[in-house]
């Protein structure tokens, strides 16, 4: 029995890397042509869980809600975190859920995982939906203390507490670095800038060992995989999917191109005279400010 149970919730998302992503001529995402992958923030959440594996020999479980193909995301996350349990919550009725209805499924799933969870990790936000709401909403439904924007953490196994650093950015105002302490269990939404550090030899040895283990497990991921439909999960169908979503997408439209705010002078980049002109204008712009 492990002394620390860790869950990660992840998401299969469009792959925004060049070569995988496809845009329509109007600049919008071509979902049909774009490949899918484990979301970048889910990847960071899996790394954060693996840190608990290496440091505290945690037992890792991963959960996701999605179509059957989302099991590929579970496999990728297992490869990164050495998870021993993979949960896929998959049912037509879950489709179209907003964040509140998604959180209901994830909360129920996490409660069905083996062992009582001490920490649940989620990514900062999904790269397609980008709401960043599902993590904290799942936390609140679980009744776990929510810690957002965590960039570093340590566990005190004896006292069942966590100390964590949070980086709170208030755009155009200030950033705040906060160190907090809280009793377990906690729900952590991991910051995009999180980087696990393994300093000692024994940590690095454990890192190597579990990485190998993770590779083998991920090759045989199906034996760790459990798929739940709405009945198997035991959620009330009224609280999931479209019926359980307070919000709907009413319409999608192109953002109208605004009126030109400036009258651009068009210069030819291959004409040295034009380059000279551009640079002298730039110089003027900067000079104006010196006088100011």
């Amino acid at each position, binding site marked *: 029995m492990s002394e620390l149970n860790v869950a990660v919730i992840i998401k299969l998302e469009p792959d925004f*890397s060049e070569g995988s*992503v496809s845009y329509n001529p109007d*600049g*919008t*995402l071509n979902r049909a042509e774009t490949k899918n992958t484990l979301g*970048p923030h889910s990847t960071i959440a899996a790394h954060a869980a693996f840190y608990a594996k290496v440091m505290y020999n945690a037992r890792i479980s991963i959960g996701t809600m999605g179509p059957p193909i989302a099991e590929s995301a579970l496999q990728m996350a297992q490869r990164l975190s050495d998870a021993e349990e993979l949960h896929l919550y998959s049912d037509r009725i879950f489709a179209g859920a907003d964040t*509140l209805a998604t*959180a209901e499924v994830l909360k129920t799933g996490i409660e069905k995982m083996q062992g009582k969870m001490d920490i649940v990790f989620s990514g900062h936000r999904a790269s397609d939906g980008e*709401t*960043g*709401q599902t993590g*904290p*909403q799942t936390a*609140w439904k679980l009744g776990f203390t*929510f*810690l957002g924007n965590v960039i570093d953490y340590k566990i005190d196994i004896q006292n069942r507490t966590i100390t964590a650093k949070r980086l709170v950015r*208030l*755009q*155009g105002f*200030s*950033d*705040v*670095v*906060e*160190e*907090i*302490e*809280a*009793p377990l269990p906690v729900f952590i939404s991991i910051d*995009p800038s999180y980087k696990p550090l393994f300093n000692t030899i024994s940590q690095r040895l454990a890192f190597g060992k579990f990485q190998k283990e993770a590779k083998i497990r991920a090759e045989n991921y199906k034996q760790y995989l459990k798929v739940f439909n709405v009945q198997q999960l035991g959620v009330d169908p009224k609280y999931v999917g*479209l*019926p359980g979503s*307070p*919000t*709907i997408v*009413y319409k*999608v439209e*192109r*953002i109208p*191109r*605004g*009126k030109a*705010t*400036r009258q*651009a*002078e*068009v*210069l030819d*980049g291959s004409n*040295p005279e034009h*380059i*000279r002109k551009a*640079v002298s*204008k*730039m*110089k*003027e712009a*900067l000079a*104006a*400010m010196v006088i100011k």
Partner: protein
Amino acid sequence: MTEGNYQHLYVIMEVEDGKLVPVSLEMLGEARRLVDSFNRKYNLDEKVVAVLLGYELNDISQTLIEHGADFVVYAEHPELMVYRNNIYTKVIGQIAQDKNIAKIISSEDSNFKKPRYMFFGADNIGRHLSSTVLVELESGLASDINKLEINDIKLTHQHKTDGKEVTYEKTLEMYRPDFSGFLWTTILCLDNKNHSIEREYHPQSCSIIPGVFEPIEPDKKRKGQVIEYTTKIDQNDLKVKVLNRQVIKSEVDFDRYRAVVSFGRGIKDAPEENIRLIEELAKSLNAEIGVSLPISKKPFSINQNLSAKYMILERVIGTSGRKISPMLYVAIGISGAMQHVAGMKDSEFVVAVNPDENSPIKDECDIFIKGRMEDVIPKLVEEIKKQSFVIQA
């Protein structure tokens, strides 16, 4: 819905280090405009209610009234001095459902259950806070909104209305730009009027992108009332102890530079080489480097150091990132999606380098240099050196 169950617009204020975070007054400004037109349209007298949590913030209440709040509900307690999700969620949840507060605001007895609408800031605090508060209030939430309207909406929906046409009155239309910056999605939070799943979903709530809406001109003569709220603190909600807290300057600090050079997906033909060129240009102008939102999703596999340095959210200019106003803004390979333009439109002088004369950035710049960055940047750098810029730090 029984009239009176859901009333008023509650706006959640953010305070850091004793000072109002700018998005707070921006939200109040938009709340004021919306509620004024709502009251005219429906011949009602609903209020803009600013909700303020903290300690020793008495001066701020007055500022909020001057900026459009009809009422300020002020929960003052030493335990509320800094934002902590648990206790803040509980206190806001209590305030939002407090009938006595509603009675003072409406100046009459009513069946008040919850606010009609609710706004939060879409930043690292408001985003999480809005999420947990709306679970507590069991209603819907839209994030990152940059346009709002209130209308009566006729709708036929399989789940919401059981396929029948229903008119939803006084519905908040919440417009959200998608990640590409080219699409607007309108989100509605609607009661289920389908008998098999009947439920009321109020407040209709959203988080609002910082820097989008203008605060109203402060008016010292505006009248408003401060309601002091006696907070019930449950020790269970104080599990998180703040051991240490430091306000720091961001790693990427656009304000220290007079020029900013930004790049977008246009670097795609040779991402690494092009970033190096952009670095050179930025150096010659003593400029900070920014990026468009798609770049923060690391669309190119390049040298780890370059990726970690540049393809990050901290550098994003636009509604998902920073709003800046340098003396000189140079947009390289940026098409000019609305969400980006919102972050740079206040720049004094804007130069764009782009091969496509039809890209929207042309309408947002003073000089449009037509050409590929691979060809244009080296020429610019050479010319800048020739014209020997004396750049003051």
